[in-house]
């Protein structure tokens, strides 16, 4: 097939500028509502459950899941489904264990919850380390993805693409704070859900609205194997380990957790997870149809010819079904997706730097409102520059492991500390620091020793640690370290204040006051 991918596409550019103008317009409007720290970090706690559900979905449905999973399904069929499902099953965990207690107990960052009855300085310092590690690793994946995608789709140079993403994202966060970031996520989520649904509908129309006919055609063209588990699950322990990190990592991602502070109360937090789970589940089901559609209507060879990893499966499918204009629309949606995710990440990293480190560690809480806001914006600017530099530094590098590592750190470093601090009376400061640092460092170390880094990147003959995913070891280690160190270091004040935590978790801040 002939593709116009990579050539200047006027429709893509039109949609892209339309998206940029609408979102910058929102930012201008939001900037006038961003005068306090609470507005900057938490959108004045005025976001509704449905809006936050869409924004959560926007934060979570990255270009990697849209383009990457569609590509994986297009090239290897069934195996892609394992990833789709893994990304969704973390959401019920967020709902059952984290969302409502977090909303009632914290203020801007997840460290607020962990540090609530513990000593502020050590806990917040450790939490900032794991937060910044997750944000940086996630940013690397997004920025490198942005550079490559935009190069493929718009024909722009890699560096120009990375700088554009960095600057536009900075405009949103710097001026519009959480209000603008939330609305960018909502616009992006609606575009992505709408675009993916439309594309899937076109695929299914081709098969008389019968998904089974689509799967049968895939079998006819590629063989029975596309409907069965294949080579991606060669090592079952590794698959389990990945699954564990995907499932438990979602509940520890700082940019996701931060969103629960934008709603007015715990009940709205509950509503927002329900919406997010519905949207995200729907999206992954749709992606599965897109992947099989690309397999049958575009063909694996054509997809591999454009990009070995299969990332262009969905855009190519759009071109086959809707011509150059639809390709342009999908390309612009993919770009918008990256921009929105990068904005959410930057804001959560800035909150860790300014709210946790500057306000509560360096200044021990004695900070004026004006200074807090100034520091928050400075941290945003610094992180924006870091994001651009990371994108350029990792050009041409294999960064496939970074998102997996971010999830592993979130699951091993952040989740144990969060769960203990909400549910366990005997949790102590030393236990919290141990849980966060042991979880984070073991995940990083095991990834470094894994085949992904040792064999794929450093080109050594054999890895030191056999698994690609550290979760199955590092998550239990994080929980174990938090428990063991807490038991060995009893903290009376923390135990006495647990009743206060329980009141606050269940009754909320206002009822308790």
């Amino acid at each position, binding site marked *: 097939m002939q593709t116009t991918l990579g050539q200047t596409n006027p429709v893509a550019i039109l949609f892209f500028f339309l998206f940029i103008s609408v979102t910058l317009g929102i930012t201008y409007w939001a900037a006038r509502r961003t005068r306090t720290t609470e507005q900057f970090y938490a959108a004045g706690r005025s976001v509704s459950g449905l809006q936050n559900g869409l924004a959560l979905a926007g934060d979570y449905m990255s270009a990697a899941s849209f383009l990457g999973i569609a590509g994986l399904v297009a090239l290897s069929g*069934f195996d892609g489904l394992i990833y789709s499902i*893994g990304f*969704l*099953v973390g959401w019920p965990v967020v709902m059952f264990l984290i969302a409502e207690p977090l909303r009632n107990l914290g203020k801007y960052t997840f460290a607020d919850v962990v540090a609530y009855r513990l000593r502020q300085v050590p806990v917040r310092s450790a939490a900032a380390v794991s937060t910044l590690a997750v944000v940086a690793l996630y940013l690397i994946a997004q920025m490198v993805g942005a550079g490559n995608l935009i190069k493929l789709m718009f024909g722009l140079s890699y560096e120009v693409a990375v700088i554009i993403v960095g600057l536009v994202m900075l405009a949103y966060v710097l001026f519009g704070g959480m209000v603008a970031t939330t609305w960018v996520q909502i616009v992006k989520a609606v575009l992505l859900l709408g675009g993916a649904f439309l594309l899937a509908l076109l695929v299914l129309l081709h098969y008389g609205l019968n998904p*089974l006919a689509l799967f049968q055609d895939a079998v006819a063209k590629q063989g029975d194997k596309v409907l*069965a588990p294949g080579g991606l699950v060669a090592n079952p322990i590794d698959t389990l380990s990945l699954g564990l990190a995907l499932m438990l990592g979602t509940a520890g991602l700082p940019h996701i957790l931060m969103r629960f502070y934008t709603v007015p109360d715990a009940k709205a937090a509950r509503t927002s997870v329900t919406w997010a789970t519905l949207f995200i589940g729907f999206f992954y089901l749709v992606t599965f149809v897109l992947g099989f559609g690309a397999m049958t209507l575009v063909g694996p060879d054509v997809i591999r010819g454009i990009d070995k990893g299969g990332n262009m499966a969905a855009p190519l499918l759009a071109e086959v079904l809707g011509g150059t204009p639809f390709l342009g629309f999908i390309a612009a949606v993919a770009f918008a997706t990256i921009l929105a995710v990068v904005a959410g990440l930057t804001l959560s990293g800035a909150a860790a730097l300014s709210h946790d480190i500057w306000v509560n560690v360096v200044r*021990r809480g004695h900070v004026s409102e004006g200074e807090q806001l100034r520091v928050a914006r400075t941290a945003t600017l610094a992180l924006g520059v870091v994001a651009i530099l990371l994108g350029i530094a990792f050009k041409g590098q294999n960064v496939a492991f970074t998102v997996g590592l971010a999830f592993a750190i979130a699951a091993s470093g952040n989740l144990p500390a969060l769960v203990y601090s909400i549910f366990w009376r005997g949790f102590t400061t030393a236990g919290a620091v141990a849980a966060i640092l042991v979880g984070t460092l073991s995940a990083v170390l095991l990834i470094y020793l894994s085949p992904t880094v040792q064999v794929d990147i450093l080109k050594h003959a054999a890895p030191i640690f056999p698994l690609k995913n550290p979760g199955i070891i590092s998550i239990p280690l994080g929980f174990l370290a938090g428990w063991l160190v807490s038991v060995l270091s009893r903290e009376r*004040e923390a135990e006495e204040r647990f009743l206060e935590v329980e009141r606050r978790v269940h009754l909320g*801040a206002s009822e308790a006051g």
Partner: protein
Amino acid sequence: MLYSPQHTKENPRPDFHDLSRVVLGVFNQEEDMTDTDKVKQLEALATQRWRIALQLTLAMMVIYFGFILLVAYAKGAMGTQLVPGLSLGILLGALVIVAAWVLNWIYVRWANREYDEAIRRLGE
């Protein structure tokens, strides 16, 4: 808002203790804690919520890891086509997503009906 911790004899560690109270707007502990009935009710509710959260989380884990184990160890069976075009693996995969929705719905129903009502009674 300017943080202004109040240093008192009862709070010998102003940096850590008072700060979180002021930052997070904590209620007056001494006054409310005298009502031991309410405290007992709260602790019972906390235990109940924890039990439900844990059970539902474990249910999600069993379903998801059951699926992964089938994918890993029963490849042949998962590839069996129940009707032409629909393999067992695809059906079970879609059902895991549906199960996530159902578990979410079970929690929300419990929370909206029983938990919120218990909270309302506690707040009185």
